[in-house]
């Protein structure tokens, strides 16, 4: 049948383009890996390296946030608090219970994930508004508790965490933690990628697009949301714990700051919540800008204004992120794609006519082909 071979030839014609795209993506990924691996040796001084670690930490937190924000569309402003819990959990396990640093990190991350179950239960049973309210309330209540319960948490005086590698010099210490952060980020990206391609991820994205329809199609929406929230909380807690071990000094005001949570949202939104590397890119831009302005201008109230303005602009004009907005702008200059079909209407008509002339010759036995055409 000539009609059947036609779509195959169009696909074959497209294959080189697909292959080229894939190769380009592979090269980019390779470049990214090389850049990450070589950054510690290229950094001119330990300050740049430590600033790089902060950006990497933001990238990790923002990617962890994107498990909930990207897949389900539920926006949490409280992920800063989950990171703070991971940090304080790790620090308290090390200082009060004498647990080895990295065991403490894993235990704290698991504890944050476990704590996310009741929080998620309260926050996710109903729709978006309650989730946002709970996420903000979480930050505020934890700030209250950790500031007031000074006998246990050190209160506003802060909490000092002993270094996991006491005999390393500071630059070496930074270098080790750079790779630890990069490793955890790679793991988070891998898990995000796996979920993105799974049936589970499809269900989550269905929730994002239309929760009622997803539910009526038999997706256990509440369970899906809860599971992905727990995964997200686990990664966020681990990131916080790693930060505690690296930075070595915790203060409730910075650990349970609603501003941290909003930075994560801003980074993810800026980079694009629907793409794997979106939050990473956003963290690179926003995190670097944050560090730069802190060095240049110190901490002024105008930081808040700039953050607020940037967030407002992103929300109003490019809620899908800068990357999708830019690629849409580029697409505008390309020859317009007529249709999302791979076969044009004219080709379809030819096919149908071909099938019908064949049908006329073949008789009633071929009626099933007609239905398919």
């Amino acid at each position, binding site marked *: 049948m000539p009609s059947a071979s036609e779509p195959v030839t169009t696909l074959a014609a497209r294959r080189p383009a697909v292959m080229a795209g894939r190769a380009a993506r592979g090269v980019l990924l390779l470049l990214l890996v090389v850049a990450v691996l070589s950054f510690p040796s290229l950094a001119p001084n330990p300050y740049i390296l430590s600033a790089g670690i902060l950006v990497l930490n933001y990238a990790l937190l923002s990617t962890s946030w994107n498990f909930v924000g990207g897949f389900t*569309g*539920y*926006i949490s*402003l409280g992920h800063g608090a989950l990171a703070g819990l991971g940090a304080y959990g790790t620090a308290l396990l090390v200082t009060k219970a004498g647990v080895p640093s990295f065991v403490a990190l894993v235990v704290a991350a698991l504890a944050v994930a476990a704590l996310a179950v*009741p*929080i998620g*239960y*309260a*926050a996710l*049973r*109903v*729709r*978006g*508004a*309650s989730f*946002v*309210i*709970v996420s*903000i*309330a979480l930050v*505020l*209540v934890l700030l*209250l*508790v950790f*500031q*007031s319960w000074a006998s246990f948490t050190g209160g506003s005086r802060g909490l000092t965490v002993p270094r996991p590698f006491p005999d390393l010099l500071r630059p070496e210490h930074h270098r080790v933690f750079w790779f630890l952060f990069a490793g955890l980020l790679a793991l988070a990206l891998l898990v995000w990628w796996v979920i993105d391609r799974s049936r589970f991820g499809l269900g989550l994205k269905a929730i994002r697009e239309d929760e009622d329809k997803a539910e009526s199609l038999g997706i256990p929406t509440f369970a899906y949301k809860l599971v992905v929230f727990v995964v997200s909380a686990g990664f966020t807690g681990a990131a916080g714990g790693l930060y505690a071990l690296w930075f070595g000094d915790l203060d409730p005001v910075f650990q349970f700051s*609603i*501003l941290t949570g*909003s930075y994560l*949202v801003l980074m993810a*939104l800026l980079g694009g919540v629907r793409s794997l590397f979106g939050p990473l890119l956003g963290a690179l831009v926003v995190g670097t800008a944050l560090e730069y302005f802190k060095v240049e201008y110190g901490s*002024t*109230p*105008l*930081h*808040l*204004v*700039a*953050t*607020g*303005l940037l*967030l*407002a602009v992103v*929300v*109003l004009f490019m*809620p899908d992120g800068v990357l999708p907005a830019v690629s849409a702008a580029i697409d505008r200059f390309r020859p317009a794609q007529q249709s999302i079909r791979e076969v044009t209407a004219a080709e379809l008509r030819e096919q149908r006519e071909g099938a019908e002339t064949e049908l006329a010759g073949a008789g009633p036995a071929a009626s099933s082909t007609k239905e398919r055409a």
Partner: protein
Amino acid sequence: MTSGALIFQSVILGLLLGGLYALLASGLTLYFGIMRVVMIAHSAFLILAAYLAWWSQTRLGVDPLLSLVVTVPLFFAAGVLLQRGLLARLRPATLTMMSVLLTFAIAVIIEGLLGYAFTGTQRRVQLGYGTANIELFGARIAVVKLIAFGLAVAALLTLYLLLKRTTFGWALRATIQHPDAARLVGIDTNRVAGYGFGLGLATAAVGGTALALDTTIYPSLHWHWIGPLMAIIVVGGLGSVPGAAAAAMVLGLTQSLLQIPLNTTWAQTIFYLALFATLAFRPQGFFGGRLAQRF
């Protein structure tokens, strides 16, 4: 130690505080009812109004209460502009989430500008009658707290009458209950929604002035208010004004009574406990209407 007079005093103070909470929560409820928007910037506008009251008193020598003449219309206009110019532009499909981010951004901008204009120093209105007290059955109540409560009650009463007795109130309630049906009977829901937002922000203006009378203010104070207020509207059932008012009175009273055995900070956690408990066991709230079921 805990004498009857102390408890009585706490009850009075709790009720006075509850009145202010009720006024502010009613504003939040209005926004939620009209557009399903959780307005994070509500308490930032509250602090802005408090700063304007403080500024008019220290710089212009005007009594803070007189600043209401300017702030209420100003905030009403700001509310209309906010709804028509910004929130209505967001995509309906993601409105709830994006509006939270947008209003969060506005709150942060206001906080930053207040910090820039007035520095982070704690400010307090100094009034001639600021230290006056009234003795009532052994309880000492500050006059400014009574004035603040009076303001809140007057504003709530005005809001109630406006919603129940005027044509605009009918239109607004119709818009909240069923926007499509409201449009079908000829209500310009867009305009009504804008005015509704204006009303909500006007409550923040009144509340801010009342707050400035007896509280020390600083730019980041609004975070201490938005948490309790959000807890109140959830406990009251999102979207129900009487529910929010009832929850505000109950929680204000509880907070005030808890301050006797605990300190001020721990007593504040009651709001968050109530919030989590409500969402875990009764997500539609305790005083809620039908609106709350699905949010």
